[in-house]
């Protein structure tokens, strides 16, 4: 309710959103306990100082370190490392794995969100919990389970070998691992939005004779567009950076099954620090782009839900 009366200013929008009285003193001065002004200011300065120091040490310095180490031997060495053939093949595999994860998880996310939010059935709670399982599983365990299912000691192995399919220590394994760790990323963004939207509009459309595809594209999808894109961004971030699960399944073959993070590891363990950080810098740039997009989306979503 209160969100309808959002003031235009960015800085005060969060705080005023929860107070029904727009002329509350907090809109002007958030830490408003009036009696001990000096003490309040000291606490405020201290807390802001601690926060800025923490963020500087934990976030800014690591990023600066990547840049410093990558450029340690000059621009030429950096360029050589970034345009190296192995780097290029690692970029391509990372893209392949990310796109595969996006496609598979989008299909799953759309069907799962539709099933969970548009129908009533028993076991729905269990299903939603199970969908979230991959997030809580350690990446190493995620890799391990695929080795157990498709590896040499598996009952499936003879059949896979006969069919000429290699999954463990090959590209399909890398892709499977990436899909697993990002599995719920799209569905978990869609479900809350669809849940809040309810089923009335779809029911109306269905009663008027629209088929499933029309209902989805004309009625449902416009509601979940932003949530969907947000899920895509989160999924991309995690997919391109996944390390543990992919590391178990890849076998680290340079130029073949190395994704960018794995190639970083290979270089780093081989004491090739400059190339390791140079390749890392590609991932840092992608991470920063993702962060920016994510913040724009978040901002959009907030103003959007306030506007409607």
């Amino acid at each position, binding site marked *: 309710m209160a969100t309808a009366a959002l003031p235009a200013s960015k*800085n005060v929008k969060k705080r005023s959103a929860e107070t029904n009285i727009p002329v509350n003193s907090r809109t002007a001065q958030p830490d408003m306990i009036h*009696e001990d002004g000096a003490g309040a200011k000291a606490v405020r300065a201290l807390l802001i100082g601690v926060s800025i120091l923490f963020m500087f040490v934990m976030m800014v310095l690591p990023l600066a370190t990547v840049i410093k180490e990558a450029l340690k031997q000059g621009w030429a060495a950096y360029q050589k490392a970034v345009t190296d053939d192995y780097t290029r093949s690692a970029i391509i595999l990372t893209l392949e794995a990310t796109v595969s994860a996006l496609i598979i998880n989008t299909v799953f996310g759309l069907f799962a969100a539709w099933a969970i939010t548009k129908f009533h059935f028993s076991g729905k709670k269990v299903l939603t919990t199970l969908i979230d399982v991959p997030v809580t599983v*350690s990446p190493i365990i995620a890799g391990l389970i695929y*080795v157990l299912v498709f590896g040499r000691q598996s009952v499936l192995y003879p059949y896979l070998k006969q069919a000429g399919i290699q999954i463990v220590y090959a590209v399909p394994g890398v892709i499977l691992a990436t899909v697993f760790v990002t599995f719920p990323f799209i569905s978990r963004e869609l479900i809350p939005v669809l849940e809040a939207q309810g089923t009335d509009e779809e029911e109306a459309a269905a009663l008027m004779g629209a088929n499933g595809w029309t209902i989805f594209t004309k009625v449902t999808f416009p509601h979940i567009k932003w949530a969907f894109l947000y899920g895509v961004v989160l999924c991309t971030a995690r997919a391109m*950076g996944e390390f543990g699960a992919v590391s178990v399944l890849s076998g680290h073959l340079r130029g073949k099954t190395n994704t960018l993070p794995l190639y970083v590891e290979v270089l780093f363990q081989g004491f090739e620090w400059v190339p390791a950080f140079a390749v890392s810098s590609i991932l840092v740039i992608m991470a920063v782009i993702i962060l920016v997009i994510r913040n724009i989306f978040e901002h959009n979503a907030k103003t959007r839900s306030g506007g409607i």
Partner: protein
Amino acid sequence: MKIKAKRVIPGMGLSLGVTIAMLSIIVLIPLASLVVFTGRLSFREFVDVITSRRVLASFEVSFVTALIASLINAVMGVILAWVLVRYDFPGRRIIDGMIELPFALPTAVAGISLTALTSDKGWIGKIFDKFGIKIAYTRIGITFALVFVGIPFVVRAVQPILEKMDGTYEEAAGVMGASRTTIFWKIIFPEIRPAVFTGFGLALGRCIGEYGSVVFIAGNQPFKTEITPLIIMAKLQEYDYGSASAIALVMLVFSFALLFAVNLIQVHNSKILKGGR
């Protein structure tokens, strides 16, 4: 009503079918293989694997470092959330956006840059080296990496609760003469406590399973800085699938228990967010 809803909107069979099929193939069947492979060990062998000295030491390293890191995150997370919600200062939006860097930055990159930063030649390591404190390749280093990994969980759990909080109670307490400390502990903290626990639990769960950002900084010495995921990796490289599954299963059970606890708190939490108490 239920029956009507089922009939009117099309696609229940299809969507539910696809959902369950994909979930089974990608998640459930592979996870079940963990139980199958552990089941091939006798109970005695299972206990032996789990209680071998090296594995127990790794449990201790993983658990203690994750616990300390999550405690630090619980405190820092509340401070950061508080500063972001209640204060306005230049750079606030930047800090708000940067909180999620650990989610966006690949763990391997975080791992090597934190290692370089805290080794005795790095910017931070250099300072502590003067006092004879080593960070990289020790448990302090592991904890440092885990603080990095876990911080967004607490901030993002506490922030929405602080935003939703009604300021009138604080104001009333202030008018009645309560000190700021009293207001914090008696009025604000009880409101955000469930969120702090949720964030703490999520961070702990993530930290215990974390691999990428820790392997580089840990040094991986058996009994000292070897984390549990690394032992699983080592067993796997020795083709000792039974032991790897057994250790993984213990970790999995622990993280599920943690998730369950977090879910219980979250039910309580969402009630507050929706306005009811």
